[in-house]
């Protein structure tokens, strides 16, 4: 009887792969990361060397852990949150170095010194098609003072989108990590009931900002609605209009990026606001990778629905064995499914047959691009932080 009262020590589940196999599978990513950061490692400056070395180790280690444990979301989240919190550090430091301030004046805007961000892409399409004009006060080609030109950012976005589809929002976007970080903080969900119609707001916002940008010949989202202006760059407050703009930026940032993710454990800005995310969803249609559900294994436990950070799953979609169009391929549903019913899938192949192969193919592309874009941002931001420290 006494032995029955003593709880059995919990057996840890066996690792998904052996260390050797995991190392072998990680080697291509390690080599890619080294290749990406070789120019930085060769350039002078100890801070940059340390930043680059840390980024190589960080990205390689996370990929190794993905291979070793078979979990995707957990390890991706470390990368994504780090990227989200380090991006503003490096960005603000470069702005202060160039202009001495986070605010941008009209003179700098007219001079084409505004860095181009991927959020603007849906807004420039209609005016570009109708009038052959790029309605953004930036430079088309990179300049000495502004390497983030329109052409560079559109090229990067197109390349990554063709490979990743909407997974851009989980592996490449340098904004989403902030709210994912705040969503990860609480242990329990405080607001559970969320109206599913909120999923449609980004589409409405996409239509509204696209047509208004064409009507006003200015990127409306950047001028009025971008929550991340609060932690990156904003128009200099010179009057009532700019004060209202700044107020909106701060209110949206606090509400959608800090408070609501904390209360709901969801990426509320990405899931219920971001018009670029809606635009990016369209590319899920032509992308090769997706998440599917093996209906023979699914227990309808709704664990995946709870885990999904953007409500990209509904009872109907799970019954059909699919996600909704706004799936960001973060892997949260796959990781949370105890029956292994949620699986990675390569379009054109049978569902739930060799899902790990589909996951590997996806992750190689996604992680290589995450290393290239996010890894370099992490490296630069770390170097910036080290530059502020009084250590030589």
């Amino acid at each position, binding site marked *: 009887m006494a032995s029955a009262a003593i709880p059995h020590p919990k057996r840890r589940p066996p690792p998904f792969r052996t260390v050797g196999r995991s190392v072998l599978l990680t080697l291509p990513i390690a080599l890619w990361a080294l290749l990406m950061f070789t120019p930085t490692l060769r350039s002078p400056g100890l801070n940059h060397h340390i930043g680059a070395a840390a980024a190589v180790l960080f990205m390689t280690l996370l990929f190794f852990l993905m291979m070793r444990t078979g979990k995707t979301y957990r390890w991706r989240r470390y990368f994504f949150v780090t990227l989200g919190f380090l991006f503003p550090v490096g960005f603000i430091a470069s702005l202060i170095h160039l202009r001495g301030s986070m605010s941008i004046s009209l003179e700098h805007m007219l001079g084409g010194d505004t860095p181009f961000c991927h959020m603007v892409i849906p807004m420039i399409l*209609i*005016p570009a098609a*109708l*009038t052959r004009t790029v309605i953004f006060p930036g430079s088309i080609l990179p300049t000495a003072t502004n390497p983030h030109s329109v052409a560079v950012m559109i090229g990067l976005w197109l390349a990554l989108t063709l490979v990743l589809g909407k997974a851009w929002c989980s592996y490449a976007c340098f904004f989403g990590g902030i709210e994912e970080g705040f969503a990860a903080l609480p242990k329990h969900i405080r607001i559970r009931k969320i109206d599913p*119609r909120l999923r*449609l*707001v980004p*589409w*409405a*916002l996409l*239509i*509204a900002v696209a*047509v*208004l940008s*064409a*009507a006003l*010949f200015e990127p*409306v989202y950047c001028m009025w609605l971008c929550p991340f202006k609060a932690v990156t760059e904003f128009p200099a407050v010179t009057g009532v209009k700019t004060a209202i703009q700044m107020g909106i930026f701060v209110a949206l940032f606090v509400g959608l990026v800090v408070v609501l993710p904390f209360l709901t454990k969801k990426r509320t800005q990405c899931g219920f606001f971001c018009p670029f995310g809606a635009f990016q969803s369209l590319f899920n249609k032509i992308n090769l990778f997706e998440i599917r559900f093996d209906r023979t294994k699914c227990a309808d436990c709704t664990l995946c629905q709870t885990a999904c950070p953007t409500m990209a799953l509904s009872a109907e979609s799970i019954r059909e064995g699919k996600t909704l169009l706004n799936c960001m391929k973060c892997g949260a549903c796959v990781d949370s499914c105890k029956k292994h019913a949620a699986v990675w899938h390569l379009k054109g192949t049978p569902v739930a047959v060799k899902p790990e192969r589909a996951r590997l193919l996806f992750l190689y592309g996604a992680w290589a691009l995450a290393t290239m874009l996010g890894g370099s941002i992490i490296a630069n931001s770390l170097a910036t932080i080290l530059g502020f420290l009084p250590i030589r």
Partner: protein
Amino acid sequence: MLGLATGPVCIASCGPVVLPWMLVQPRGVRVHARQMTLFLGARLAGYLLFASLIWMAGAAIARTWGEQSWMVGAVQLLLACGLLIYAAGWPHAHCAVARSEPPGLVQIGAAPAEPPQTRPTGAVALGFLTGINLCPPFLVAGVRVAQLPSLANALAFFALFFLGTAVWFMPLLSLSVVRRTPSFLTVARMAAVLLACWYGFSGASLLIEKAIYG
């Protein structure tokens, strides 16, 4: 030629009103063609009224932006109201869509399905308001009209200007073939509310600015 050349800017200016309004219409080319005809007809009426006013008042009406901001602000507030009414009237539109969808089972001998009913007032109101809403091509045409020798010339000029710009609205008819689902209609309704908010904010700002600074 002025209408054809400035048409892209015209469609961009009217897009925030036309697009959500088109999206909440039931599916079907005939329905959309009828609504578009009403919209453009009302827009033409707005154009001709404005042409008459400009010709009678001369270039004075277009002399300073300050003199026009009252009217622009008021028109934008009315457009906001129009869009909000459309957004609020969504349940009716949804019923019309439901009626236009083919039923799952057809009973032999049953009466044919009622065609979707759409009210013309919205199209006329929005068309007229966009017709008198000032946009850059409209002002260019207005300046030209003020210099014409007779009212008939002014009206003819604006009618032809209208025809040139109206050509650019035709591609929007392609939206008629997109399938209307409840989610689609909810998105259109939300977009109408968002755009109404912008028009309301912009119109109110203009009026407040005018009231404070004169």
